[in-house]
């Protein structure tokens, strides 16, 4: 089946937050994405599953304008990821697996940099670091952080920027139980504020989340996962 049903009937008149048509992406000799079709209405939470190397990160990077589609099209809020990159970047943010922080800057300086880059208020930085449990480590260099702390910092950055579309690549990876609960809370709150979220995750039973759709990426194609939430 086509995973286009990720949108709800009541929002069919809205511009989709994500619209993919026949999206393909080749990496070297390997066809990673093979004609992906997807439509996600605004303010939805969609979980993307798939084994290692299934193409989840590749798909997120295409949406984030970091990889070009080989063929097909991808639009975010009506903007083409190839031709209207500035508009796309202004509407999305991504939590990457690597964290994306500068190791020789402190957590506070990293978030302040993000505020400078996005025109957000630096005053929020302290409160956000407290929210993600990094208040005591705010002025320590990121190179001294554990993987989980780096993930929390990446989450704080996304909360600071708070874009209309959140792309989350394995947000639970490297986190302890409290950290996973934090991700659940932050995701739920973002969703309640009307943000659209596309989450690539191996975590299959996060009870706190009730996604609008759970999709499986397999052999470069998207389909609904058997354990899809109602």
């Amino acid at each position, binding site marked *: 089946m086509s995973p286009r049903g990720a949108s709800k009937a009541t929002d069919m008149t809205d511009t989709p937050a994500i619209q993919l048509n026949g999206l393909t992406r080749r990496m070297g000799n390997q066809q990673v994405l093979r004609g992906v079709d997807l439509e996600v209405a605004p303010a939805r939470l969609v979980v993307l599953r798939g084994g290692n190397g299934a193409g989840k990160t590749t798909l997120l990077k295409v949406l984030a304008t*970091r990889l070009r589609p080989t063929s097909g099209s991808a639009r975010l809020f009506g903007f083409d990821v190839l031709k209207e990159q*500035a508009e796309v*970047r202004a509407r999305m943010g991504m939590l*990457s697996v690597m964290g994306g922080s*500068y190791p020789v800057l402190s957590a506070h*300086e990293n978030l302040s*940099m993000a505020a400078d880059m*996005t025109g957000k208020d630096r005053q929020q930085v302290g409160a956000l670091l407290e929210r993600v449990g990094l208040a005591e480590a705010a002025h320590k260099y990121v190179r001294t952080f554990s993987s989980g702390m780096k993930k929390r910092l990446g989450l704080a950055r996304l909360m600071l920027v708070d874009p209309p579309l959140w792309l989350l690549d394995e947000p639970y990876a490297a986190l302890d139980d409290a950290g996973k609960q934090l991700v659940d809370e932050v995701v739920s709150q973002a969703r309640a504020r009307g943000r659209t979220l596309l989450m690539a995750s191996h975590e299959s039973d996060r009870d706190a989340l009730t996604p609008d759709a759970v999709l499986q990426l397999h052999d470069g194609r998207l389909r609904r996962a058997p354990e899809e939430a109602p």
Partner: protein
Amino acid sequence: MSDLHVVLAVARKDLLHELRSRAATVATLFFSAVTLVMMAFALGREQHVLTLAAPGVLWVALTFAGVIAAAQNFQADLEEGAFEQLLLYPVPRAAIFLGKLLANWTYLTALGLLLTPVAIVLYSVQAGAGAWYVIPAALVLGTFGLATIATFYAGLTANLQAREALLPVLMFPIIVPVLLGAVRATEAVLGRSELDLAGGWLQMLAGFDLVYFVVCTALFHFVVDE
């Protein structure tokens, strides 16, 4: 958020990073000092040879330092995916380039101001009339050209496995006019006082700087985006 704020934020971050890690500082200072000393020994004791060689040795040392500094600048960003994160922000690629250029230029100019008196003393060169303003002008213009090209090509090769080998191979042929202008302008006021000659070389240097600046700024998004 204006583009100028983005430029300054990127430059401030790069300089702060270097100030704390000293990754480029240690390598470039050591390399430049060794180059100056080794060449002084290699050239022998004849004063006219040392006087002739001093500007060239100084600028070759600065050029290699520029390669190391620019490569190190991008390498630091690639750790932990920070450069990828930078590219996800809704800011122009040109502003990111200009921020990195500003940081590299500041660093190279400071290094040049440090190395020039060392070269003058080590090579026993007499500074001619006008040297007090021609040499700083040559340093500012020469390091600007070096930093522009080094930043551009360091971005181009940052994700390649053989970046250490490729960066100088790609960069050095392009940098010849900048190197020539900077060496000749410096040469014109070290050991002699040919101010007209120095002025001509400085004008040529400024012209090449402008061309490289415009081209590299305009093309940087092709370097960092697929």
